[in-house]
């Protein structure tokens, strides 16, 4: 399992492309289960959402791509676009993995 913690507080139109490229390189040859830890992200717009969706597609159906620690602002975007219905979303990282990051 791979946990990717996003360090940036914003994933928006200015950073989405670089963020997507960065995710791609980390995900491409990764383990069957990937968790994206968004607990430090306080702002995400539709471009940022697009980058997260792109990562899910890259992981593909044979592996699992999950989200963790959505702040209020990020949760709102997933809810309004109903993207919360196609992602597995954890309130926070399991204790074991939190220590590992």
């Amino acid at each position, binding site marked *: 399992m791979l946990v990717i913690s996003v360090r940036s507080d*914003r994933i*928006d*139109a*200015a*950073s989405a492309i670089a963020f997507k490229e960065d995710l791609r390189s980390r995900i491409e040859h990764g383990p069957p289960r990937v968790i994206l830890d968004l607990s430090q992200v306080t*702002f995400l*717009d*539709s*471009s940022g*959402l*697009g*980058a997260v*969706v*792109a990562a*899910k*597609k890259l992981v593909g159906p044979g592996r699992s791509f999950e989200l963790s620690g959505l702040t*209020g*602002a990020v949760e*709102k*975007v997933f809810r*309004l*676009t*109903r*993207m919360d*219905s*196609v992602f597995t979303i954890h309130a926070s990282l399991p204790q074991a993995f939190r220590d590992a990051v």
Partner: protein
Amino acid sequence: MRYDPRPPAVPPPVLLHLTVQGDAVSVSDGLRRVMALPFWSPMSADFATSAELVLAEVLNNVAEHAYAGTSGEIEVSLERTAAGVAIRVADRGGPMPQNRLPEGAAPDPRDLQEGGFGWHLIRSLARDLTYRRLDGWNLFSFRIDDLPPAKQSH
């Protein structure tokens, strides 16, 4: 912190104006700066987040579509109201397709589309949306209330 019953010496402003360059980096920096102003202090953090999201979607659409391949300024004027905020956005880029606002139909989440959510988010959080073209300008106006409106039907 103790509760201080006196009103602050200088109440936060009710009118605000900013000029942002029409590209994604300037919009991001501009929003970061404007969201830190005392203008928002009477409002809930949840409300300020909605306002920032709507502003980001409107301004990034201008940068990406109206100013596609060119550059130019975006003028933003904000007015605090009893219910929330009234916003005007003006740019000198190309006009909206068919000279009107996109319907903002939500893409099906199962399609895993990476784009096309912008106007859906705007219409979900803002009300009284208007668009007009005037002397080479695009002018958008809308309100965001502290109680989010039901999604408009169109």
